[in-house]
């Protein structure tokens, strides 16, 4: 097989996921030895006409982002969405629950007319996405696993069980039992060994929901815990993937 051509690019985001990829440091060397980099916006200039795999972070918040992701889609065989913004819309989705003019005013200020801002959405809302690596930011170990699968020609599958599994395997005392409501019960696992509860923080759902989340039970348990509907929505809205499911029932 010819050496695959990879590219890395960004839409609207903090570019933290691209940084996480660069943070893999020496672990990236075998990938760089086996593949060519056609473009890596965050590391160097330059471009090529065709890619085998495009890794794109960021969500769509302007019509420019739509044009850009469509261009990339047309030039690549495989599109991999990197990080929560790309897979679920990420924190950018928060603007969808606020007045769009207000948001434009405090984000873009005087020059807001220059920016064709639209409601935030994940990449899959506009183009076909072949694989997703969720998380805010993404877990470098999971990126390497997906890259290894691609090099081996093996399908990459995300874990389809909640964060609680890895949390218990790490022998953590559950945060709920320490008075802190945690979204690990409905959030897709895969962040180990960086999972938040191991550091004493609640899971805020940055990897989106598992395939069949029991969000009704989650809301019941949160209500019994003393949270209001507003509190519950706030918990679930931080990362839009979760809002979708919950808003239907709220």
């Amino acid at each position, binding site marked *: 097989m010819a050496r695959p051509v990879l590219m890395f690019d960004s839409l609207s985001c903090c570019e933290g996921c691209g940084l996480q990829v660069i943070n893999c440091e020496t672990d990236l060397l075998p990938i760089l030895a086996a593949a060519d980099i056609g473009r890596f916006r965050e590391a160097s200039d330059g471009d090529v006409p065709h890619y085998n795999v495009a890794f794109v972070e960021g969500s769509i918040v302007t019509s420019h982002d739509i044009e850009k992701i469509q261009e990339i889609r047309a030039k690549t065989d495989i599109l991999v969405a990197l990080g929560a913004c790309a897979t679920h819309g990420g924190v950018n989705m928060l603007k969808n629950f606020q007045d769009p003019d207000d948001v434009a005013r405090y984000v873009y200020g005087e020059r807001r007319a220059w920016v064709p801002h639209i409601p935030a959405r994940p990449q899959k809302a506009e183009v076909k996405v072949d694989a997703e690596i969720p998380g805010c930011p993404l877990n470098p170990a999971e990126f390497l696993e997906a890259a290894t699968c691609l090099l081996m020609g093996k399908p990459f599958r995300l874990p389809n069980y909640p964060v*609680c599994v890895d949390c*218990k395997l790490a*022998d953590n005392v559950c945060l709920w039992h320490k008075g802190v409501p945690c979204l690990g*019960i409905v959030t897709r696992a895969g962040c180990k060994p960086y999972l938040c509860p191991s550091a004493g923080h609640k899971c805020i759902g940055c990897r989106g929901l598992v395939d069949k989340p029991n969000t009704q*039970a989650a809301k019941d348990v949160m209500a019994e815990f003393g949270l209001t509907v507003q509190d519950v929505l706030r918990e679930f809205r931080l990362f839009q993937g979760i809002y979708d499911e919950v808003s239907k029932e709220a």
Partner: protein
Amino acid sequence: MLPLVLNKSDLGAWIEALAAQRRVAAPVLKETSPADRTDLKFGWEYIADPAEVRLDYTVTVLGPKKFLWPARQTVMSYQIGADPRPTAVLDHEPHVLFGVHPCDVTAIQTLDAAFSKDIADPHYLARRADTAIVSIDCAAPCDETCFCLDMGSLYPEAGYDVMLTPEGNRFFVEVKTPLGEALVEKAKVRPATKQDMQARQKFAEEKRGNFHFQLPFEVKYLPEILDASYDSLVWEAIARRCFACGSCNTTCPTCYCWDVDDDVAVDLTKGCRVRRYDSCQLDPFAEVAGGENFRKDRSSRLRHRMFRKGKYILDQTGRSGCVGCGRCERACVADISIKETFIQIAGSR
């Protein structure tokens, strides 16, 4: 052997002496709850200092099982290419699990039976053969979720090398096996006096008074009660609250299912096979090649767990699949209780 006594002040020196020969794992204080500083959270860890050992501990998230069968364990390594050279990884070294409660002693016996039947599990059995168990008796229920008396695990007759019984400023030391005898050689024990024996008697009476049966039926009827409940609506009703998060299984001291993953090096030259605790409550647990899932519904998975714990494991290993330790209920954010479930199905037939 004459009954022996160890003064509590001599415990540290004994642990220190044991640590020279074996890795010592024991219950330690992990943290206190930020909401309530008197709410102590204990865990099983390797210890560096005998002063860390908390034999007055109540409950732990994972039990001592994790030293016999780690939550994640590499079972095989291999090369990629023409000559794969698969090599089994059997890592074990002498251990002593110091301070195992009666329920966990009983649970380890279930694991021993499960991992020995059919195709024996060399990874577990190698670690088990290298592990000594010092048990500590419970004077009172660890909390309101446990029902060890019902499940017959409060008075284990075997499964430990040494049993300690705390009474005042001393421990009664019961040596069960030759290995236990060797362990106790390092301890500053003395023969029990008549007064000691009276205190021992007092402990036994108080213990009897502190524990009460909680199930409304004798546990020998549990498999029958479960059988009769198979089509009950109870399963659906309870499972409405279940997140399928698996915490009930991943913390259970008798659960022995695992899932296997390949961990391949990025340069594609080698890999290893890693197993981790699995849970029959997880959605993909019964998914097979082609995508078929033969326990799609949470209710059928929840029923399966209860049947495993109350009947199937007993049928298969001859030992109970549930020791009544209460870990599953404690770990469940939705407060689903196996004890309450057993009570409910007995009443709903």
